[in-house]
């Protein structure tokens, strides 16, 4: 199932999003680096010029953690099972001698492998491009921490939305509303509201990260159980 899903992720039209998500930040970073080098680009915040190192951190949190990782999680997470149901090809998978939960697990692992393989090197390239060689040493720890955040984010968003995909009929719109509607709004609200988002825990410490990983595992297990218990009536 993992192999089959891997092929679909890499060779189907869905690979377009992964490719764009990986390539665009690198191209942007290259462009900015050239602009910084030529002196035609600067960012001034509160009268202070932002260094490329700071820009890298901003790129990770704004571009990767706020957009790329959630968007890829929503799209691939919800489409793992929902696409098979909509295309009515899920029948062929259900009548094989394997637990239905294996379909979810195989597809989720394929998603994880492919998206990590696309996004982590992309973030690493952005680091290499944005940060001057001399400044890299002290920033390695921060860089590794950012990569961990991205990896955990990919796992978490994918898990949440694979669960949404096996549970709801039209999970994509709900997923987009959650990621681009609810999460930014909740982040601005006071009190505990922000804790009702994945983004809050991504920005937290190691304990939050571990909690998110465990929650992801739980979400995948729940998705596996859901698909085994539910019956899917395909539209004629």
């Amino acid at each position, binding site marked *: 199932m993992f192999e089959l899903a891997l092929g679909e992720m890499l060779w189907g039209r869905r690979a377009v999003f992964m490719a764009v998500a990986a390539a665009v930040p690198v191209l942007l970073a290259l462009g900015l680096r050239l602009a910084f080098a030529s002196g035609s680009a600067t960012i001034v915040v509160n009268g202070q010029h932002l260094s490329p190192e700071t820009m890298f951190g901003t790129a990770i949190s704004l571009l990767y953690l706020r957009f790329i990782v959630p968007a890829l999680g929503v799209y691939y997470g919800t489409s793992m099972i929902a696409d098979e149901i909509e295309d009515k090809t899920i029948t062929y998978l259900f009548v094989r*001698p394997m*637990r239905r939960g294996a379909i979810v697990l195989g597809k989720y692992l394929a998603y994880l492998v492919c998206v990590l393989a696309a996004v982590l090197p992309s973030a690493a390239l952005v680091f290499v491009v944005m940060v001057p060689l001399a400044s890299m040493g002290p920033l390695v720890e921060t860089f590794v921490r950012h990569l961990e955040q991205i990896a955990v984010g990919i796992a978490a968003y994918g898990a949440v939305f694979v669960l949404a995909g096996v549970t709801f009929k039209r999970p994509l719109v709900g997923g987009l509303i959650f990621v681009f509607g609810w999460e930014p709004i909740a982040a601005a609200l006071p009190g505990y509201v922000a804790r009702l988002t994945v983004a809050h825990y991504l920005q937290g410490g190691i304990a939050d990260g571990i909690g998110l990983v465990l929650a992801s595992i739980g979400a995948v297990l729940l998705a596996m159980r859901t698909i085994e218990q539910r019956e899917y009536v395909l539209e*004629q």
Partner: protein
Amino acid sequence: MIVATEHLSKWYGEVSGLNDVTVTVPEGVTGLLGPNGAGKSTFMKLVTGQLRPSTGSVRIFGEPIWGNPAQYRRLGFCPEQDAFYTNMTGREWIEALAGLHGMDGDSSRAAATRALDAVDLLDAADRKIGGYSKGMRQRIKLAQAIAHDPALLILDEPLSGMDPLMRRRTIRLIKEWARAGKTVVVSSHILHEIEAMTSNILLMHNGRIVAEGNVHQIRALIDEHPHRVWIRAEDPQAVARLLLSGDEVSSVKFDEGAVIVETARPDAFYTRLTSLAASGEAGAIEEVTSPDDNLQAVFSYLVKE
């Protein structure tokens, strides 16, 4: 018994798909016959474990199918819907699905080749399924159902979309599979297709089994039920006069430019009508129709009983 259901019912909300079905399917080929909406696909989805029974039970080889994935080693299913991974070639698709049965690379390749050869698709095996014709897509569905050599085959409208030559070949294939020891359940809403494959049928209507048994018994029911034939002729009175001289005709009525005949022995009647038309004794016979609602008439007859 290979497939056994006991008081099997399935409803979708307030709509009843299957209603208290208790049947057993023996070895060999069994035809599942019924008009559209009779519940044939629902029955097949329950037997293949895609749907959970609302009440009752369904067992294959003596064990329940829902939530029992090991059973799928012995089951092959050809669904009705036209759904594929269109970006894969036929061979890739069959190999991938064979791989889900636990076959390694070489075994799945060999199995795929055998299956594609059986359905006469080897030439097109390396083309993308998205470019297949309707008949080819139907055949590739059959191929994925037989690739792992299952003991039980459930085929939902397998001849749909096939040209006449391919239909004959597929019917021959189904009979070969049965001779090889497989149990095959085939659904269709066309009587003569099922007749060509098997004499053992299940008749469904409105979610219920209305008859099961030998097709000749069912045909006899059709023969007993008055059979109407509408004949447009140059001289309807002459046709009626000549037909009434035989004992196949129960009654005769006239329509504008036509005669409507009722007969309880349609086979003998048609033989007589054909010779009459060939001899030209009663003038030109321009049109003869006998709508397929005689199947509906049989169902109505059986439901009223």
